[in-house]
């Protein structure tokens, strides 16, 4: 069985965590096959390509021979991922030999792609209709502006320069989902972010639409009338997020995908997607952030006290109070530390550690202070009729993994609330 658990870190991971039935349906769309293939680990891609023209199953043993000895762990990760995505199907024959074969729908779609090359999902509108389109730079600026405006509104709605059209109810869905991880937000949709799009519409439809969108060319205009009703509804929300820009001509209206949309299906390694950092943390808990972005300022405000705001510099202090504020909002010390490390200014990013140890340690200690008491809902039993019944009950609780505490003299027992029901049944049986 597959061993890797997929944690939705980006859009493709989220797609991968869909239930099997949905995945099988998705593979009927060639764009999704392509996007999924590109999201795979390098070795897994290689296997798919290698097996693309092979119709029969291949035994696990012979696949093992494809890799060198020190690649065994990578091999396992690749095969597990392929199984999890149902690109590989596993069969075990009578001699207990495992063999794999490619998902036939996936396989035939990719074969077609190999012969025909990449096909674009739609024809861009000719420039005679669209007149002047925004340049790529303008589009980038637009996308980032939209995204930052939206993020600002999420974090602190009073700071947003202009209210976006996103209704307050969808905003709430977003806030609920993102609250715990919002300080790590990079401009990309997360699983929780995705839920907001998911209003009575089949997620599979949306995923295929988003993936199709990612194969459009950045900066080209595409006619909106080519979309289905659901897609037309969705694309307005996507425009608010900066994934597309909507424009209206005399007769037609069209959408222009931005980089945010076309990067959706891209899964890059961390190093290539990392942006330039801007934060310097000193050992005296002072923090200097070289940034003009309001969003950055608001993010820092989540866990620190802003002291000065200069045109290109934000000076802040990390204090116990400011951190408690963050912890209350559900942000963990680990998240803050990793945010500081990932966004370390190039001057300090080279150093190890990039954030002073006394600061990170203190942050962890303050967090640990809050977690001295752990609360577990529980039930207490006493007045057992006999010692046998009491001991039987203790044993039962231990087996059910719900045992918390016992006092054998007074014959009292405390168990976790989740096994209370089973416990009652057990006790009534033993009477």
């Amino acid at each position: 069985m597959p061993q890797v658990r997929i944690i939705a870190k980006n859009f493709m991971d989220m797609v991968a965590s869909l239930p099997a039935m949905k995945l099988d349906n998705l593979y009927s769309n060639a764009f999704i096959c392509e996007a999924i293939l590109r999201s795979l680990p390098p070795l897994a891609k290689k296997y798919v390509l290698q097996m693309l023209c092979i119709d029969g199953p291949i035994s696990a043993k012979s696949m093992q021979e494809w890799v060198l000895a020190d690649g065994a762990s990578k091999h396992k990760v690749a095969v597990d991922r392929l199984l999890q995505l149902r690109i590989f199907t596993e069969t075990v024959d009578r001699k207990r030999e495992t063999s794999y074969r490619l998902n036939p729908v996936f396989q035939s779609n990719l074969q077609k792609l190999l012969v025909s090359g990449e096909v674009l999902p739609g024809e861009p509108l000719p420039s005679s209709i669209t007149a002047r389109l925004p340049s790529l730079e303008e589009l980038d600026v637009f996308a980032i502006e939209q995204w930052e405006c939206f993020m600002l509104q999420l974090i602190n709605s009073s700071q947003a320069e202009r209210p976006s059209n996103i209704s307050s109810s969808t905003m709430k869905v977003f806030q609920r989902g993102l609250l715990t991880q919002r300080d790590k937000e990079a401009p990309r949709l997360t699983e929780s972010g995705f839920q907001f799009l998911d209003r009575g519409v089949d997620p599979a439809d949306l995923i295929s639409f988003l993936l199709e969108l990612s194969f459009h060319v950045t900066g080209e205009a595409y006619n909106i009338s080519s979309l289905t009703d659901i897609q037309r509804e969705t694309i307005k929300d996507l425009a608010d997020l900066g994934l597309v820009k909507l424009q209206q001509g005399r007769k037609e209206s069209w959408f222009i995908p931005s980089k945010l949309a076309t990067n959706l299906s891209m899964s890059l390694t961390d190093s290539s997607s990392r942006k330039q950092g801007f934060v310097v943390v000193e050992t005296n808990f002072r923090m200097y952030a070289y940034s003009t972005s309001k969003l950055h300022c608001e993010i820092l405000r989540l866990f620190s006290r802003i002291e000065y705001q200069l045109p290109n510099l934000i000076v802040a202090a990390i204090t116990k109070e400011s951190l408690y504020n963050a912890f209350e909002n559900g942000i963990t010390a680990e998240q803050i530390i990793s945010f500081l490390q990932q966004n370390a200014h190039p001057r300090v990013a080279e150093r190890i550690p990039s954030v002073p140890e006394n600061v990170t340690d203190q942050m962890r200690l303050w967090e640990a202070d809050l977690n001295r008491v752990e609360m577990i809902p529980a039930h207490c039993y006493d007045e057992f009729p006999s010692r046998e019944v009491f001991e039987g009950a203790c044993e039962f609780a231990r087996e059910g993994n719900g045992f918390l505490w016992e006092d054998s003299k007074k014959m009292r027992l405390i168990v976790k609330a989740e096994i209370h029901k089973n416990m009652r049944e057990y006790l009534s049986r033993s009477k």
Partner: protein
Amino acid sequence: MASAPSKLYADDVSLLMVLLDTNPLFWSTSSLPFSNFLSHVLSFLNSILLLNQLNQVAVIATGYNSCDYIFDSSVSTSRGLENGRMPALCSNLLQKLEEFVVRDEQLCKEGSENGLASSLLSGYVAIMNAIFSAQRSMVPIDSCYLGSNNSAFLQQASYITGGVYLKPQQPDGLFQYLSTVFATDLHSRTFLQLPKSVGVDFRASKEDSRKDGRPLESRRKDSRKNDPNIQLASSV
């Protein structure tokens, strides 16, 4: 000479340069028709572009007398179907290839009086230059060789640069060879079992090595750096 140490690659993005030998002397005697060969190669190019959004492919045709770019994925932006049926990559490449072959043939007629000896010698120097600079910049040269004998030149080139030299036993299944061996990105090469050289002929090349069929030579490298070898390679 020891083979080049391999660079460490963090991701699987690659730039693939394909050198196609279009020498009519070889293809007129080959068991695999040139058209079949081309369709294998086209699928191979498509598969490289399919694997990663950032992958790039350039194809250079080397003829009897000259060589030229016939495809560059970073230039041809119009992807998708053209003229209704033929995919853009195919039609672009085939058109350029045809133009190239015609030009090469004409050059051949013009150049026949001058004699080939001098060009052969300068060709040899250029090839060795290309190989050594590929070694220096750690760009592996892979060779897929369809001729009857082994090519000492390409064996050495692949060995020195840490690439793969392969002579497919069944040319009809060329795509399988290409996708299994040559489509491997440099990142995965560190832990994949690839064909090893069985014995490289280290003798100095004889002059007639140029007449051997040298259908496909591919080199891949980290796409983020400029390739200093392209210029040299094109004077092969």
